[in-house]
Structures are given as structure tokens and as C-alpha cells.
């Protein structure tokens, strides 16, 4: 009781101390615990999605691998690095806030925001790419390409960074791309066809899971590929991809909002060695969003890459 008196009369009110607390130590501990508990709920929030991912992937591993191979792992990896750099600048922001170095804080916050924006830019570019290729799982939300339009010959090749698999040029004789109603499109059946053939040749092999043998076949157990059925499963992958990355991007956008506010506060010189917990809390949030991406990257972009050596 001696260290801190409850009575307002005798306490020198430090700036930023809220009335319900006795001292800054108590306030900081409360705020930081609150933030961590909030992150705990965020873990469970994303966790629901990861559960859906886990179940769906365990049901349709090949469809997930095929879908994943259609994502641009290079861009995904680049984005991972961008986020890591932004995490570094964020950590340094906290460091300089503790030192009360206003200029470094402001500079680093600006950098962090720039990297955040870069991430979102790349993400937007990837989304556009999916839009052009008919990979958005919702009907009508893809680029509409009429049979007679010039784009139909190029699978959207207008864009740089095209992945080889999806370019019609890479496979001579591929049918032209038409998508008049903007539906979900899927044309890559080589991998699953390959596995299906092997499975047929070797009925006791483990090329397809039991569930896949049932659900990709024209009729249960026929082991003849039903393309429509397989396409539906790939669509599930893209659905999960969009929900997970979309929710992650939303968190980034909220993070940028927080950073804007933080920038203003830092610019005013609010933070110093005694009072910097807003910087620290925003940092926790930012790092958390980074961690989510650290998992999303391998789980969404890389899961089927090891099939590429099959050369299909």
C-alpha cells in the first residue's frame, strides 16, 4: 500500500494515467494483458479458418495442391519478405519510442506503413490476376471474356508475372479462354489425371485418398476423373484462399489505420521512456498480423510445389 496511494489527492498525476489506475505500472500491465488477450481471441478467430482449411485439405489434398500451384509463389514469398521488413521497422519504432527519439519514430512508422502498403499492393495485383483468370470462386466476380474478344487467346497475358502453368502459350493447342459470365474456371487436370491413372493401375497404392477416389470419380469407385467434380474441390481451395488472405488483408488495413494515428501521436512527440505503451501495443498487433502471414504463405502457396518435378 505504501508504494502507491489510492487517494487522488496525494498522487502526482502522470500524463496519460487513467483515473481507475493507481500508477503507470498498473496501467501498463493492464493494457498489455488486455492486448495479449485480444490477440488470443484473434488466434482463435483465424483458428476457425485454419480448422476449415485443415479439414478441407485433408479431404481433398490433390485439389488443394493443384489450386495452390496456380498461385504465384514468387509474389507470395516477396510479400512475406515485405512483411518481415515491416516487422523489423515496427520493432525498431518501439525501440526508438522508448528512447524518446521522435525523428526516428516518425521515420520508421512511415517506413512500416510503406511496407504495409506494398504488401497490399502486391496482394491487390495478385487478386487482379485471379480475377483475370477466372479463379475467383464466386460466379460473376471474374473478368468476362467473350468468345470473340482478343483476350480470349491470351488468358490475360497482358499482365506481367504470369505463371507458366496458366499461360495458354505454354501449352500449344490449348483451347482459347472464354468466360462470358465470369464464372470460376479451371483447366489444369494433369496432376489429378496422372494420380488417377496410377491409382487405377495400382488399386492398393496411396496416390489418392479413399475420399478422393470417391469424390473425384465419375461414379464412386470408377476411378475415372470427373472434371466438374474436381473443379468444385479446387474452387473450395480458392474460396479458402480468398477468405484467409482477405481477412488477413483486412487486418493489414486496420493496422494501417492504427499506424496513421500512431504517426500523428509520434509526430506530436507524445512518446518517451515513461509513456510509450500505445506504440508497443500497436507493435504487438502488427507483429501478430505478420505471424498469421508466416503461416499463410507455406500453407496456401507452397503446398503442391513438390509435384512440379513431375513435369506435368
Amino acid at each position, binding site marked *: *500500500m505504501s*508504494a502507491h496511494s489510492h487517494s487522488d489527492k496525494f498522487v502526482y498525476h502522470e500524463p496519460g494515467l487513467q483515473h481507475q489506475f*493507481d500508477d503507470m*505500472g*498498473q496501467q*501498463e*500491465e*493492464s493494457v*498489455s*494483458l488486455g492486448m*495479449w*488477450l485480444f*490477440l*488470443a*481471441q484473434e*488466434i*482463435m478467430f483465424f*483458428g*476457425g479458418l*485454419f*480448422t476449415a482449411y*485443415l*479439414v478441407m485439405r*485433408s*479431404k481433398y489434398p490433390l485439389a488443394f495442391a493443384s489450386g495452390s500451384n496456380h498461385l504465384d*509463389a514468387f509474389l507470395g*514469398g516477396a510479400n*512475406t*519478405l515485405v512483411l*518481415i521488413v515491416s*516487422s*523489423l521497422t*515496427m*520493432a*525498431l519504432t518501439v*525501440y526508438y519510442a*522508448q*528512447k524518446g527519439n521522435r525523428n526516428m519514430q516518425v521515420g520508421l512508422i512511415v517506413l512500416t506503413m510503406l511496407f504495409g502498403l506494398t504488401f497490399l499492393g502486391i496482394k491487390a495485383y495478385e487478386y487482379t490476376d485471379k480475377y483475370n483468370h477466372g479463379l475467383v470462386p464466386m460466379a460473376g466476380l471474374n473478368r468476362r471474356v467473350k468468345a470473340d474478344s482478343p483476350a480470349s487467346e491470351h488468358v490475360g497475358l497482358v499482365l506481367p508475372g504470369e505463371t507458366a502453368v496458366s499461360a495458354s502459350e505454354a501449352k500449344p493447342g490449348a483451347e482459347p479462354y472464354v468466360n462470358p459470365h465470369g464464372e470460376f474456371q479451371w483447366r489444369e487436370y494433369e496432376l489429378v489425371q496422372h494420380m488417377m491413372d496410377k491409382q487405377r493401375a495400382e488399386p492398393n497404392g*496411396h496416390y489418392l485418398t*479413399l*475420399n478422393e477416389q470417391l469424390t473425384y470419380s465419375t461414379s464412386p469407385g470408377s476411378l475415372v476423373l470427373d472434371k466438374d467434380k474436381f473443379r468444385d474441390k479446387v474452387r473450395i481451395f480458392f474460396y479458402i484462399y480468398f477468405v484467409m488472405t482477405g481477412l488477413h488483408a483486412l487486418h493489414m488495413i486496420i493496422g494501417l489505420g492504427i499506424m496513421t494515428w500512431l504517426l500523428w501521436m509520434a509526430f506530436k512527440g507524445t512518446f518517451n*521512456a515513461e509513456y510509450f505503451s500505445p506504440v*508497443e501495443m500497436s*507493435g*504487438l498487433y502488427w*507483429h*501478430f498480423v*505478420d*505471424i498469421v502471414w*508466416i*503461416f499463410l*504463405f*507455406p*500453407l496456401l502457396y*507452397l*503446398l503442391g*510445389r*513438390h509435384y*512440379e*518435378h513431375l513435369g506435368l
Partner: protein
Amino acid sequence: MAEQTTEHHNPHIEVPNEHIGIPGYLGVFAVLVVGTILTYYVALMDLDWIFPGANTLVALGIAFTKMTVVGLFFMHVRWSPRLVWMSAVGAFFWLTIMFAYTMQDYLTRGTGFFGH
């Protein structure tokens, strides 16, 4: 008077504010970059000969490592009160409950001793 019991008398004030300093942060950064590159190249190798799904396991292992260093150093868990530590680990534990008990259903469907 009764003994001091509330926890807010030992905030992490004694801990040096420096944490690991700038070289430390750069070191963590380097680990993260290496991890990212590693995870990319390992994904290209076919590890299915070890056991099916080995690729995913390796990828997750790297991701966990990256998460751990971000948590410990960037998020300062290493210097935080036990409570913070517990809420971080606790939430992950809860997530594994959800995974484990859901998969316990899916992995035991179909034929077999308990099959329908």
C-alpha cells in the same frame, strides 16, 4: 496489513529497456529472411519419400520457428510477465484442441474397427 498480493507491483520495469538492441533485432530479421527463403526451396523438393506430407511438416516447422522468434524478440514475450506468456501459449493450446478433436472425427471415419 496483509501481504502484497496484487501483481502490479512488479511490472517489467527492472528489465533493461534495450531488450536485445539494434544488432539483436537485425539478427532476428536475418533469421526470418533465411527462414523464408529456406521454406521456399524446401517446398520445391519432393520429400514424400520420407513419409507422405513431410513437406508440410517441414514448412510448418519453419513457420513455427519464425513465429517463435517474432514472438520472443519482436513482441518482447521473452521479457514479459508470465501472464503474457500464458495467454500466448494458451491460445495456441486451445487451437490444438480444436484441431485435434475435430480431426479425431475425420481421421476415424470410414472402414476400420470403429467404422460404420
